[in-house]
């Protein structure tokens, strides 16, 4: 089996290992990424930026191949999928493959692992680089064997022809792969694929089930010490005074680190570090200000805040025709959501020989290492991040902050590896949340209830405050003696968008306008959370289209298909309805069905969700009885991987929609644990069926965020179907539903 377990030698051996084993010096990959492609041919995916084949593929003397990728494993199965692609194109067994991923000194800079971009950008790059590496090997073999290249075959890395054979490992002398890809080698024909398209088991799962070494918590370098940080009571509080003398004398405490309003502690034992941090918090005096609108004031706050920018995401006024005979309007609200990973963020940092080495589960190892370098005043080349898996990642959580905090502590105690894992409260209260949003919709209709004019207006705070190479995006950097100011966030534009992601409905309406009020003030810290604005926008669009169908007296599926011209979208909607049994479904008291659809970002995977609920009108409790999702992710590399992502996203979205809302008062976040921020549990999870639509030979489309939006809308639509009451404010807690039913 492909080796993706912890490579202790690489992770713990220090900087020397790089020079010994690899010929690309640290920083070279960065330089390649920055170089413009110029006149050169456009290469597939991220290969276009990092064009050297040897940056991606190495043939090793020990009869293995190493695949180097900048994308990282977050539990989404990316490393298994790209291994399938690589093994197929190189004609090797997956067991002959090793992977190095997310090590800033070693791998191609593929930016951030986010946005459902890994398969679209990394997949084609690995495919092309592997295909070209195979061609180079074949040509070398042809010369060696004296046979025409076309006559040769490859199996498990052994090239055969004319009764003789030679292996990649015999051929790979020196600089064979030290050349740029040409884009002229054709990848394998569909019929010749051995691993791609198969439900190959995830490479990292056996270790996770048996106590193997795979998570950052399982790295235990010699002399490891434990760190913890002390956060202020509120976002903007300033440290007035701190008497740390008692804590410093506590057994096990090695050092208290204070820098401005940043306080950290290093101890011999993890529990000592945690206890010392608590004691330091109690000993500290803070200047606190009241500044937050509170949970229930957030919707009005968004509507009244002055936007930093008003963006015309789409402007398509209707050209002539009759005026609308009827206009409908609605306002939808989603609250802040947490990433709420089961494990809190963690990192290990060591400052040795002038190099800061950080093992981190960051999604953005390159940009985070640059941000940390700025924070510490170090040369960018002297900060190395190595990706090691952590708990589930659904966007910009505190992984980068943990890396930065571990580095701040390690910088104060050179030579010692410091590991830090936040407390639950520390993560719950300080992670960057998915922004609360208001979405207003308005439709002008003709006499048959068809949409003539569609207007959607979005109110949102930022969805992107990732490190991006800037110290001010690291939480603790803002509290230092010389604080780094947070850069003003921007709203990413086309084709991915951010607050307005999926703000443009895929339906075709004669008039169609989308306006985005982008508010850079942030009552609560916010950043990328699975789907960004798509969850709220799809919730609003797909709820509203249901409202219009109801107003027109038309079945919601049929009404959607009236305005949907995209054939693959129609297939996805139809498939979900068919597998759900939409047409055979019969209404029963308290029961309802709902459907929701989106093509994620309007450029990634298609997904429709249909589900059935039972609503207890007495107590307002919603039970989801079953759910069906259709998914078209283009050419499917690993069908079980796609199922897992769609199903997992559906469950997480049900949890958001039914239960989740970050609570806060006028000073601080009060959702500080699983009791005050409950998520869905086993007893509440319905049977889920995922119907895949495979499109062999078409581009890989990202899947990881495709089911979030459709699920929330399908749920609200089903609740309406069951009760006749439309709920537009999330989450659909029993209290809210009960209140709505008795209003």
């Amino acid at each position, binding site marked *: 089996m492909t080796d993706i377990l912890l490579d202790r030698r690489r992770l713990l051996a220090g900087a020397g290992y790089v020079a010994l084993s690899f010929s690309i010096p640290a920083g070279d990959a960065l330089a390649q990424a920055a170089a413009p492609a110029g006149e050169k041919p456009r290469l597939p995916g991220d290969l276009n930026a990092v064009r050297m084949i040897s940056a991606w593929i190495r043939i090793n003397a020990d009869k293995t191949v190493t695949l180097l990728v900048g994308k990282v494993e977050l539990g989404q199965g990316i490393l298994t999928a790209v291994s399938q692609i690589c093994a197929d194109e190189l004609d090797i067994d997956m067991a002959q493959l090793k992977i190095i991923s997310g090590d800033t000194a070693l791998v191609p800079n593929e930016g951030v692992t986010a946005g459902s971009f890994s398969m679209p950008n990394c997949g084609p790059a690995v495919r092309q680089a592997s295909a070209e590496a195979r061609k180079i090997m074949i040509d070398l073999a042809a010369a060696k064997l004296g046979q025409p290249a076309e006559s040769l075959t490859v199996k498990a890395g052994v090239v055969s022809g004319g009764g003789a054979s030679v292996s990649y490992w015999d051929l790979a002398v020196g600089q064979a792969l030290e050349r740029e890809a040409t884009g002229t080698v054709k990848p394998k024909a569909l019929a010749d694929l051995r691993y791609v398209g198969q439900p190959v088991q995830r490479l990292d799962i056996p270790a996770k089930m048996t106590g193997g070494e795979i998570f950052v918590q399982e790295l235990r370098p010699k002399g490891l010490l434990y760190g913890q940080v002390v956060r202020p009571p509120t976002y903007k509080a300033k440290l007035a005074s701190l008497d740390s003398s008692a804590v410093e004398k506590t057994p096990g405490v090695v050092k208290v680190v204070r820098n401005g309003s940043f306080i950290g502690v290093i101890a011999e034992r993890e529990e000592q570090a945690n206890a010392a941090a608590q004691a330091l918090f109690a000993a500290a005096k803070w200047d606190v200000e009241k500044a937050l609108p509170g949970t229930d004031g957030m919707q009005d706050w968004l509507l009244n805040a002055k936007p930093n920018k008003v963006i015309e995401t789409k402007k398509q006024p209707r050209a002539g025709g009759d005026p609308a005979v009827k206009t409908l309007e609605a306002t939808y609200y989603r609250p802040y959501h947490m990433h709420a990973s089961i494990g809190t963020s963690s990192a290990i940092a060591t400052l040795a020989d002038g190099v800061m080495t950080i093992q981190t589960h960051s999604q953005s190892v390159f940009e985070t290492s640059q941000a940390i370098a700025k924070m510490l005043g170090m040369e960018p080349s002297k900060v190395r991040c190595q990706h090691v898996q952590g708990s589930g990642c659904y966007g910009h959580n505190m992984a980068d902050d943990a890396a930065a905090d571990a580095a701040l502590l390690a910088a104060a105690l050179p030579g010692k590896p410091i590991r830090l894992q936040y407390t639950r409260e520390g993560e719950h209260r300080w992670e960057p949340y998915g922004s609360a949003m208001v979405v207003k919709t308005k439709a002008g209709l003709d006499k048959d209830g068809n949409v003539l004019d569609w207007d959607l207006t979005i109110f949102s705070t930022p969805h992107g405050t990732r490190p991006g190479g800037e110290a001010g995006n690291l939480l603790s950097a803002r509290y230092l003696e010389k604080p780094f100011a947070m850069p003003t966030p921007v709203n990413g534009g086309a084709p991915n968008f951010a607050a307005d992601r999926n703000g443009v409905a895929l339906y075709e309406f004669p008039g169609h306008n989308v306006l985005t009020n982008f508010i850079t003030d942030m009552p609560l810290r916010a950043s990328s959370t699975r789907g960004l604005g798509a969850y709220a926008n799809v919730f609003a669009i797909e709820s509203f289209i249901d409202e219009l169908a109801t107003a027109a007296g038309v079945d919601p599926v049929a009404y959607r298909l009236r305005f949907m011209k995209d054939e693959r979208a129609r297939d996805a909607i139809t498939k979900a309805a068919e597998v759900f049994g939409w047409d055979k479904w019969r209404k029963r008291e308290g029961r309802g069905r709902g459907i929701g659809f989106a093509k994620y970002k309007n450029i990634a995977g298609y997904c429709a969700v249909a589900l059935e609920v039972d609503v207890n009108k007495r107590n307002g409790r919603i039970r989801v009885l079953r759910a069906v999702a259709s998914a078209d992710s283009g050419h499917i590399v690993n069908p079980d991987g796609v199922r897992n992502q769609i199903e997992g996203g559906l469950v*997480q979205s049900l949890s958001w929609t039914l239960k989740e809302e970050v609570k806060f008062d006028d000073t601080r976040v009060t959702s500080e644990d699983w009791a005050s921020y409950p998520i869905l549990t086993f007893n509440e999870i319905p049977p889920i069926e995922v119907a895949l639509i495979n499109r062999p030979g078409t581009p890989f489309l990202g899947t990881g965020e495709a089911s979030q939006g459709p699920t929330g809308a399908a749920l609200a639509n089903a609740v309406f179907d069951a009760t006749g009451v439309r709920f537009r404010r999330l989450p659909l807690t029993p209290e809210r539903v009960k209140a709505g039913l008795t209003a």
Partner: protein
Amino acid sequence: MVTFKLNQAEVRVDAPATSPLLFVLANDLGVNGVKYGCGRSQCGSCTVLIDGEPVRSCQTPVSAAAGRSVTTLEGLLEGGKPSKLQQAFIDEQAAQCGYCAAGMIMQAQALLDRNPAPSESDVRTSLNGNLCRCGAHNRIVRAVLRAAKEA
């Protein structure tokens, strides 16, 4: 100094008696099959068995393990190979990130020890206090039922 059995082997640790069993296992004894999740017994990712009973090791002082038998994920291995339950989790691909898996498997092991042929509803109820954020719940339930069937 605290002495207890860890996965059938006698261990002695020099740790304060009040130290959470979780940190002693993970940091003093190098056990990978326990995870910090919340420190408040709310999520189950630190679940181990003490004398066969599932406990949350994050809020169990190591002194409570003294003289008793502690089983972690590693202790389920049979001759170095995954147990039926562990293999069922692999076969069902019952994870995304897998951070909660260790606690899930230990909780499920305790269920199967008590009730070798649980219903789906038994499994869900037994695991209801173990949180998963990736949405692998139904796979996890299938894995436990599969292990029960294959036992």
